[in-house]
């Protein structure tokens, strides 16, 4: 077990290193940089073109003059030794401050929609497996497929329209105006909960359908296995039998993907967040990519991919704990 963990850990470190390299290269791939971006904007506003010396000065100010590998080493050095992710050109702060400022809202949204997904889909999935090909099964499956097929941003738009048209509310944002900048208080939490349920359902709904379908399929496989018949023959009550054995087994694939929840806690649904104007981290990532604010974008990408790797590592451990076969392979 220890050897297994060590091996997984070393692979993880190597993966993160390679990811950091690739992230940095990808960020540099689009033509131009933040400075050309500013120049283009100023030119299109009718400004005269800056001289090459001025441009060079600007590149120097933003640290864009060095060759790429020097920039990379400076960047990674600061991350490891100072915990700084690089200067954000747009916000004029370190990238990590920007990322961290938006994290709490992202966390709350992702966690609550995750819980929403599990609370809704576990019972439904089990129900539709046990009562397969019943009217109820067909109904939840139909709803599930529709949920899976509708892009969540479209659902968000429809919800916004319905809320506006029939209830007279602009259901955008996570806080009312007076609570936007207020310090945390009971009233603010209440205000958050009031605004939270729409994004929670919209972000969650797509995942619900997927989870129902997977659980149903897994459970159907298990239900036909001889141990279920044996248990039933031995007179075990149906409910206890179901929960204690086949459901547990059917949950295996979920444990292995549980780790992927980590990155989604950070970035969540970027497009839904944009449509619903949520002050989460997704829109910041999107804007950073659009305006070539490279350190914010790189910091985000690095963090997301690191979390994916770490999440996978955690899943591996959980699986190993759950399933002895994996440990000894």
């Amino acid at each position, binding site marked *: 077990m220890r050897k297994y963990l060590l091996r997984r850990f070393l692979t993880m470190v190597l993966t993160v290193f390679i990811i950091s390299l690739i992230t940095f290269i990808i960020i540099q791939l689009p033509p131009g940089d933040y400075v050309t971006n500013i120049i283009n904007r100023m030119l299109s506003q*009718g400004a*005269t073109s*800056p*001289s*090459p*010396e001025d441009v060079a000065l600007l590149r*120097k100010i933003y640290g864009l003059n060095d060759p790429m590998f020097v920039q990379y080493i400076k960047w990674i050095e600061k991350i490891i030794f100072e915990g700084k992710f690089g200067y954000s050109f747009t916000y004029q702060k370190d990238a990590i401050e920007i990322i961290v400022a938006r994290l709490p809202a992202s966390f709350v949204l992702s966690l609550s929609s995750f819980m929403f997904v599990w609370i809704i889909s576990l019972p439904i999935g089990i129900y539709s497996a046990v009562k397969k090909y019943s009217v109820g099964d067909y109904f939840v499956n139909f709803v599930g497929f529709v949920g899976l097929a509708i892009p969540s941003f479209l659902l968000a738009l429809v919800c*916004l329209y319905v809320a506006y048209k029939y209830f007279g509310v*602009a259901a955008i944002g996570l806080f009312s105006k007076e609570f936007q900048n207020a310090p945390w208080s009971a009233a603010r939490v209440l205000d958050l909960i009031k605004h939270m349920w729409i994004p929670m359902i919209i972000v969650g709904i797509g995942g619900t359908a997927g989870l129902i379908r997977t659980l149903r399929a897994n459970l159907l496989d298990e239900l036909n296995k001889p141990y279920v018949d044996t248990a039933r023959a031995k007179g075990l009550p149906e409910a206890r039998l179901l929960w204690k054995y086949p459901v547990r087994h059917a949950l295996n694939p979920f444990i292995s993907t549980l780790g992927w929840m980590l990155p989604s806690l950070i970035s969540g649904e970027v497009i839904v967040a944009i449509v619903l*104007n949520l002050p989460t981290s997704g829109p910041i990532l999107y804007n950073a990519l659009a305006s070539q604010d490279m350190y914010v974008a790189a910091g985000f990408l690095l963090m997301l991919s690191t979390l994916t790797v770490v999440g996978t590592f955690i899943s591996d451990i959980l699986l190993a704990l759950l399933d002895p076969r994996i440990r000894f392979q």
Partner: protein
Amino acid sequence: MRKFTFVTIILIVSFVLGSCAKTPTLTPEVIKETVVATQLVKETSVVKVVETQNVVVTATPLPTALPKYKESPMLAELVTAGKLPPVDQRLPDNPVVVVPVKETGVYGGDFRFGFVGGSPEWGGMLYFAGWEHPVFWKLDFSGYVPNLAESLTANADASVWTMKLRKGMKWSDGVPFTADDIGFFIQDVLMNKELYPGGVGGDWLPGDMTATFSYAKADDYTVILSFGKSYGTFPLILASWAGRQFAMYPKHYLQQFHKAYNPNIADLMKKQGVETWTALFFTKGPDTWGNPGRWFTEVDLPTLYAYKVTQPLGTGSQVLMERNPYYWKVDDKGNQLPYIDKITGIMYQDNQGLTLAMLNGDLDFYNKPGGDEEKPLFLDAIAQGKPLFITNVLNDGANGVVLQFNMTNPDPVKAEVFSDKNFRVGVSYSINRPELIELFNSGLGYPSQVCPQPSSPLYIEQCNNQYIEYDKAKAQEYLDKVFTKGKDADGFYLDKNGRRFSFVLIVINNWSWAPRNADLGEVLVGYMRAVGLDAKMNAMPDTQWDPLRLKNEVEAFISTGEGGAGLTGLLDARNYVPMEYWGTYSNGWTLWRLKGQGVQGITGDVEPPQWVVDARKKYDDALSAPTEADQIARMRAVVQEATDRFYEIGAFQGGEAWYPFSSKIGNVYDNWYQGWIEGVYKLLYPEQWYLIP
């Protein structure tokens, strides 16, 4: 006929108010207002009630000597508490007097403004909380009125300009705004070799005058700017974007970040974490381009704007601003402006969210995304009783559609075809303008090429009306002159090598002001295909377009129609003279000019022929001509040449756009011009808006 008479506002400058708190009387006044929006003249009679009753109650007990000016209760409290000098001492001897559009406003309120994106200034806040230039455009773009500067006068050949500042005018921290601030801006910033290693930066100073330009201070409130050459359009340039920097360099604050003034600057550099003093200067003050954005992020930076930021946007979603206690404008009753005390700027992630909030009455005003699709929603919301109203926005543009063919295309066959006037005339006849007006201009306006509007002194009838009929037979007739090899089996023209002549029309699909650009492109491509031109469309975001432009990989393009109203065509001549940034019909030549100025990353430059250089020269001469009459005469010649050469194809002019406001806002014009050159909403004098209690 006088084309525009906006009598609803009169800006009186250099007028000291003596008796402002007189007996209340009501004076009804009948004003005849004439607005030309289309070729038809609309006449509207407006009954305006000029209310001289003073509705503002100051909270302070009146001192023994009656103060000359009145102020917001919010500031009066600070005065009583001893935290602020009395209002008379805060205002200049000769403040700018803005006569309210409809009535005297009421002080107070928190104005909610919505915008999209991470920069509040470009989200629109600059246009009502900022944008203070030495002079300001007249409402009909026929000239300028003083603003920061009390006066701006020239010598006989307009090569030396004297700018008089307002005595007693102060920055938002109470320090006087004097000639030294202008001197600091010009001598210590623009002319500093370390800050601007490439030579004097400052887009109000043309490149060919930097060598002969000089600055002198006559007294504390008078500066003399000598250009060495005639520069007759200087005031109009100052009224536009290029004039922004004169209000941007408070010497007393910025000198601490300047090496020449602060021997201990290294400490500040270390504190800020930068390696050079230039980086420090450009981070704490305006950046290299004099971007006014810093006033929306730096709380400590003194300002001359109507509002100062108290909480920047940062990573949050709101930016808070409050009134500048030293703002130097008053209304006709001596009330210090602005009327509104506070601004809350609310950031939205996308236009839909923003529009929804505005529709729902959650905002007082917003940065309206381009396009007309949402008008029915607003009419519907108003019918449902939402607190909104709609104003008419007059188009300041030269055209709603600007179709350009790149005469400098690297492919010689294509360049030859695009350069042939017969080709462009043929395409122009293939366009069904009445249909475009129905589809893209709400059925309003009239067919026209890309030209100054009929109300402009630069208007040339032939320019607007040549080749504007929809006539497929004529289109074929002209195109047959270009393509001598005839058509192929599918009905498309063949080039001179016998191959089908095809080209790609590039349209930008993420311009906020042209949301239906891709639809427009589809329709135009349809017209051209119908007469045998194998046109295809490629819609892309501007970030993808920029590199293509630098490589000159452009065949056809839909650009924007600036330069229609008043004298705006003189300053923004993209549609009348080659080698302008958005004049894609001359893209290779434009790149040649930009490359000559040192812009990097250009690979597609093409050396212009002599006639282009000459055309450019004529335009430069128009810009520097000493008198307005001379400028107009020369610019008319430039427009005439553009007419004869027929650089690009237009579709329609005029029509009215619309702009919703919360019905809580008072003193808004019913009809107004909106355009970039005059600062978008700044032409509405937002400092005299008020929130109706």
